[in-house]
Structure formats: C-alpha cells, structure tokens
C-alpha cells in the first residue's frame, strides 16, 4: 500500500474543499492535499450552469462553474496536490485516510489535520415512500442536471417535478429551454421550498404551474415510467379522496431535499446534530474528533455558495491552528453553546471553546416565514447585539457575525415581527 504524509488533507474538491485547501496553504500549511472522486475539481458547481452565484463574494453574477473556475485557477497556481478520480474509503480518529484509485491502488494518507468537505446528497425515491413500481425515468433533479448540462443527454420529453426546492425549479427552466415539456411542479407543503426569485424566473417566466399541497400519489409504468397520479393533500398531509388526477409523463424529477453526506464522519465516530444532519461543530468548525474539521454542505446544507466558501476558510484556519498546537479539541476541552430561541431553528456552529473571546460567524435558518423580525443575541441575560430582518423564511439562510466572550452560552433569538 502506498503511504503518504500531509499537513492537511481535504476530502472533496467542490467549493468548500477548494476554499479550504487554498486557505490552508495561505495560513502556512506546507503540504496540502485535495482528494476528489470525480475526474475534475469543482464538485456540483460544474453542473450548475445557471447564474446567480458569487454575488456576495465577487460582487457580480456568475454561473456556478464560473465561480468554481475562479478557485480552480487559483489552486492550480499553488503547490497544493490534487488526487482526482480517487475514492476515500475511511477516515480514522488518528487522522489517517484510506483511499484508492486506478493509478495508485490503495493509499494510506497520514495527516496532521483533516477537513471534511464531501457536500450533500439528494433524497431519493425510496426516502419519500413513492408508491407504485420502480420504473426507469424517476431521477433526482441533480442527476437530470448532470445528464443535461454536462453529459448531453435529455432524460425525457415530458417531465413532472415533485418538490419545489431550488434545484427542481432551476431544472424546470433548463428542461424547458432544452425543448422538453414541463407539466408542472408539485409540492407537498403549503409553501414553496425554493426561493421566490427562482419561482418567478424559472416557473412564472415559462408559464409552468406550481401546485402546492399536492403530491405524486402513484408512479405508473413497469419498465419505463408512463405517468403519475397526483393528488391534493389536506392539512395533515393526507390525500383528499377524489382529487386524484392522472398525468402522462416519461420523466419524474425529484427535488425533495438534500442531506449532508456523512458516511465517512459516522465511520470515525463524529457526533452529528440531528437538526442539521451534519457534525456538531465548534467556532473553528472542528468536529467532536480532535483535528477533524468540516465545512460546506457536509456541515449543514447552505444555500449560498458564498457561505460554503467562507465556511471552508474558517475550517482551514482552524485546521492550521490545530496543526500548530494552538487548538486541542476533544474531551479535555470545555465549550459554551450557541442556543437557538424563538423562530430560530438551528445554528451552526453549535458550540464555542470556553474562554475564547471571539467573533464567530453564525449560520442559521428560521422555522417559519416572518416579516419585520428582530434578531437578538444575548449572553447571561445581557443583550449583546440586535439586528433587524425585514423578511425571513426557511429557504433563506441567515448569516451574521457575533461577538462572544466565550464565558456563557450565546442565545440567538429571532423575535416575531409586530
């Protein structure tokens, strides 16, 4: 088995991993490695050809792969090593990575710190208990995106989309532009899962109907999908009898949510947060295993790539500090917590190293939409800062910088608008 040593290894060459690797090198790590399972860097951004990326970071509208290219070009001008077409099989608590590829075979890579940046996965048909046969032609929105935007295949002619998440909306427009007929978007919940601007620009622009509180009740067809039965749902998400309607289609696109990809994290016993489904992180984005950090969508599903890159940089700074003995983590370390209150559903990072006076970047989502809400941050009953939020909604992640003393829990309360 080939053995290698690195200061820092980054698992995943998408936006989080690229930003983390570049930052780690800038912070002084000399031997940095990126391990990517695809044949090129960029991750899922390479199939996101639509624009709207990079507004925060670069101040202009870019397509996903343009955004990725900025980082790839920067990385290629450094001595950061990259292993492409390489699958990581295991990460140990001692920060040893086992990986393999066609050229090198099995590899044992020992590192001083590891940054997890594996991204997330889409929920599939079996995870939403779709009734009926399992014919060809039921695909996740991301698969359809890859087929159309990168590989040059049209996976159908008449499509039905289940779920109104952003990828589903984006794909409604893409399929229409490619000459496919999109029969409609069906959303189980009474409100859309995606951002309003995507509903306007991807559905309204092309007269694609959005049906709320409606589901795909059955998939028809044995070898290949022939159609679906859709049905209205009541407030308990039960099918309302008599509302069933048959729709002929040869493609069902599932845009029903994303889940952080934590198989490797679970394998080495990293503690997960049941709300974010990502690792529990401290203010340096270190996981519960000392020296193993996480960033990007493996930590929590972000919706802006700008935040993903930012989280990669935070994790990289943490990893270099750990490498230099400035952070310890693990059982001997005490923490205070970031505590969601009011309309706040969850916060990442979940904890702050006790006694560390710091400015910490918090990422959070609310439970329900609201207007004129006020974000109030407090420690020990003392309000430390407030911020006004004219509009909040679950699909729009909120990011803010908070000053913490490190001596008490940080309560983050999104108060209802008046």
């Amino acid at each position, binding site marked *: 088995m080939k053995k290698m040593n690195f200061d820092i290894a980054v698992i995943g060459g998408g936006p989080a991993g690229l930003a983390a690797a570049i930052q780690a090198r800038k912070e002084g790590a000399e031997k940095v490695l990126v391990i990517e399972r695809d*044949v090129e860097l960029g991750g899922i951004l390479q199939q996101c050809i639509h624009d709207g990326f990079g507004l925060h970071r670069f101040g202009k509208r870019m397509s996903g792969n343009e955004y990725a290219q900025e980082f790839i070009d920067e990385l290629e001008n450094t001595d950061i090593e990259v292993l492409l077409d390489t699958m990581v099989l295991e990460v140990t608590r001692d920060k040893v990575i086992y990986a393999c590829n066609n050229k090198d075979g099995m590899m044992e890579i020992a590192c001083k710190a590891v940054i997890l940046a594996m991204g997330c996965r889409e929920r599939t048909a079996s995870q939403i208990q779709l009734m009926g046969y399992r014919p060809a032609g039921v695909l996740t929105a991301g698969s359809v995106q890859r087929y159309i935007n990168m590989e*040059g295949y049209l996976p159908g002619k008449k499509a039905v989309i289940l779920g109104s998440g952003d990828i589903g909306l984006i794909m409604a427009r893409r399929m229409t532009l490619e000459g496919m007929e999109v029969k409609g978007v069906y959303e189980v919940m009474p409100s859309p899962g995606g951002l309003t601007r995507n509903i306007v620009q991807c559905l309204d622009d092309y007269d694609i109907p959005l049906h709320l509180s409606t589901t795909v009740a059955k998939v028809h067809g044995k070898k290949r999908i022939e159609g679906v039965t859709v049905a209205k749902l009541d407030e308990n998400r039960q099918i309302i009898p008599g509302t069933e309607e048959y729709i002929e289609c040869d493609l069902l696109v599932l845009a029903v949510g994303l889940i952080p990809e934590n198989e490797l994290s679970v394998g080495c016993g990293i503690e997960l947060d049941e709300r974010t489904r990502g690792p529990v992180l401290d203010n340096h984005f270190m996981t519960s295993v000392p020296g193993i950090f996480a960033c990007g969508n493996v930590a929590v599903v972000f919706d802006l790539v700008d935040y993903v890159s930012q989280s990669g940089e935070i994790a990289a700074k943490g990893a270099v500090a750990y490498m230099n003995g400035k952070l310890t983590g693990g059982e001997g370390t005490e923490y205070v917590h970031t505590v969601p209150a009011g309309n706040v559903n969850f916060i990442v990072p979940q904890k702050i190293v006790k006694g560390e006076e710091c400015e910490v970047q918090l990422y959070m989502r609310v439970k329900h939409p609201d207007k004129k809400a006020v974000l109030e941050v407090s420690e020990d009953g003392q309000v430390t800062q407030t911020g006004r939020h004219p509009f909040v909604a679950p699909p729009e992640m909120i990011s803010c910088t908070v000053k913490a003393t490190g001596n008490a829990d940080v309560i983050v309360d999104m108060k209802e608008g008046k």
Partner: protein
Amino acid sequence: MNKKEFVCIACPNSCKLTVWEEGGEIHVDGHGCKRGIDHGKNEYTNPMRMLTTTVAIEGGHHRRLSVSSTGEIPKNMISQCLDVLYAVKLVAPVKRGDVIAADICGTGVDIVASRTMKHV
C-alpha cells in the same frame, strides 16, 4: 388598460406588483419600495434576462460546455438566441471567457464560455 401582475424579486420581500399603462404613463401598485417601481416598469415594458445554456463540444471531459451571456438580453429573444447556440459545435480546449457567439442576434451581448475545458 392592460393590467399585468408580477412578483417583485428586487428583495426577498416578494411584493405583488400590479402594473398598467394609462394616459401614456406606466403605473405600478403594490410595491413596498422604490426598487419595486423600477422592477415593475422594466418587467412591463422590456423584461431582460441572463441566458445560460450549453453548447456541444468534442475532445474534452464532457460533451457539453456551459456558456453564459455577458449581460442581460430581452426575454422575448431567448429562444432565437438558443437556436443559434444549439447549432454551435466546439472542439476542446476552450478557456473561460472565450467568446462563443459575439453580439448574439444583434443584442449587443456576447455569449462566452463559463468554464475552461481542457483537451483530453
């Protein structure tokens, strides 16, 4: 009087705009701020959109190369522009920013490669 309704996307507030023409002037209602008036007027008179799509490429890792407009183009010209782009066939290598179609359909906007694709 031809009334049209739009959801404003100038900010996440998502105001429901009603826009109509009366006495040679365009009126906007339902807006929460000044940006909504501008958005409503633009949508009513000449809606503009960015165009991103793919073109065929040979000799690279993939069979499609993503391309993007350098500015917004009139919404009603999108399908005309697509017809031009779907006839394009490239050979790798291509660098990000390479012009794929200059001044597409006389819009004054270029279509450029939004990624680099090396020859393999």
